[in-house]
């Protein structure tokens, strides 16, 4: 049994990412150059290895100490919030700002503990109107307001 899972997994994360950077430098053959004329691979290779090593040390320490376990992932808010955000990005150009904001608010509000769709609908419309006023008319950001096929 792991006595300090939080630190253990943090160490694993650092070790994997760190060495991955170093390995990528080697696999893709980024030029290392010399100490006086460093190539593109030099600095990331050194940093990646130090980070990987540090990850191993953290793992080692975690095996020797006791600590807290990693609390459960809250998949529900994670999925709804990030999902809604990505959808917004994907449809913004096609659907226009108004519709994509309404979608973003409606979808993301499923991530909360209690979901009241009427309330979400009202706030989504209010947010869409204010955003268009502030960002499109006020700050002149180049957003289409309505879907392409309408405008």
């Amino acid at each position, binding site marked *: 049994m792991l006595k300090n899972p*939080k*630190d253990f*997994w*943090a160490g694993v*994360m*650092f070790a994997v990412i*760190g060495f991955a*950077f170093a390995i*990528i430098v080697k696999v893709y053959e*980024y*030029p290392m150059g*010399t*100490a*006086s*004329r*460093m190539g*593109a691979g030099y*600095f*990331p290779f050194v*940093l990646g290895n130090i*980070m990987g090593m540090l*990850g191993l040390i*953290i793992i080692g320490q975690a095996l020797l100490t006791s600590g*807290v376990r*990693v609390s459960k*992932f*809250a998949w529900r*808010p*994670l999925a709804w*919030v*990030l999902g*809604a*955000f*990505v959808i*917004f*990005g*994907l449809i*913004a*150009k096609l659907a226009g*700002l108004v519709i*994509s*904001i309404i979608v*973003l*608010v409606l979808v*993301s*509000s499923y*991530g*909360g*503990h*209690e979901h009241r769709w009427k*309330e*979400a609908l009202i*706030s*989504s419309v209010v*947010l869409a109107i204010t*955003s268009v006023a502030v*960002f499109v008319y006020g*700050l*002149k*950001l180049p957003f289409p307001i309505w879907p392409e096929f309408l405008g």
Partner: protein
Amino acid sequence: MEQLFSNLALGFGVALTLNNLMYCLVGCLLGTLIGVLPGIGPIATIAMLLPATFTLPPESALIMLAGIYYGAQYGGSTTAILINIPGESSSVVTALDGYQMARQGRAGPALATAALGSFFAGTVATFLLAAAAPPLAQIAFKFGPAEYFSLMVLGLIAAVVLAHGSVLKAVAMILLGLLLGLVGTDVNSGMARFSFGIPELTDGIGFVAVAMGVFGLAEIIKNLEQGDEKREVFLNKVTNLWPSKQDFKDCWASVLRGTGLGSLLGILPGGGAVLASFAAYTLEKKLAKDSSRFGKGDIRGVAAPESANNAAAQTSFIPLLTLGIPPNAVMALMVGAMIIQGIQPGPQVMTERPQLFWGMIASMWIGNLLLVILNLPLIGMWIKLLTVPYRMLYPAILVFCGIGVYSLSNSPFDVVITAMFGFVGYLFVKLDCEPAPLLLGFILGPMMEENLRRAMLLSRGDPMTFVTRPLSATLLAVSLLLLIIIMLPAIRKKREEAFVEE
């Protein structure tokens, strides 16, 4: 001295134009707003607003963004005092005594003390900034690449020492930040690194995406996980705002000490408003002859941390504006903002763009004045905002984040990257990895590589250049010393105790 006044006059000339005055006001109000609202901090807000400032002239953009940072220090204290909810982590300690004062019917004096203390501290810190910047920039001009590299090492190490949690993890987070900062085209050879053939990645990962994902989205998910805490809002009528004579007598020394300590800690790398307020509170408790009243509504417990966090928020601009090196995560974002505006942060900003430099400094003092005037009458409105439940608040934050990120390149790419960093940031929360050092490393990554290369080129590949040049050697020695000290068991325990209140 005469130089100083003519510089400040130039600055006020810039800051007092109607346009800039308005942006200063907008920044301060936004800062206060997010200061009041828990769950969204200055980092996410500045990241959110950055794209909106692209089209502004650089002076206006930076004036507004700076206003957000120090404005947040004012807002955070209001809710800490009135309803025991620190809207910002820098006002956590203010809640200890401030809320007790409010319960004893002394909310008015507590709020006034916080505001006046902040204003005093802000004024002193602004003058300090104005006075210290030119000589420091002169020193900075003497820096070669070796010195810059060592200075960045010191900055990053100090950021670790002053962060809470595991030192090793914080160092690893810095390294991760540095590495992520290297993604994209290598300026020396023109080679695309770690981009895996994705054309958008050859420009590097946008720091707005990183900051917003790790500090904005991850924070929202974390808050949703914790569930709707019942935010009880009851606003007793705030009567007799003005502190009594006795109050003034009790707290003027605390304000002075808080200002001094805060100014100092703001300059230090890794420092900033949060650390300053904690340190100031601890200092007051240690110095007080009778410390039994602390935690039970002692006015000194409000005056000191509030002065300190505001002073620190101002002085942390000193290393940014003179050396071009951000001392904390918020300043790292300001570096990004400057680069977007085509300004390379560093000592040359002062000489090449005096309008910008002095305009920004003058605007800080004006901003502080605006805050003190506006804050007290607007308290009722801020408190009302807190009655908005989080389930309505977070979709709104998401909308602003989404618009901000999307408009970076008008493509879904940055939105997807931000979402990925949202997940990564949530993972950091789960694994107890403090994200601020990552952001600092991210900004410094390319700068460090560049200076390392130049230094090594100049020394013909001899790494001894870092220890044979006296200034560089000193900086490295201090970093090493810091690392050793923090690793000592006795100090380590003390440090853990010091951060326990967080």
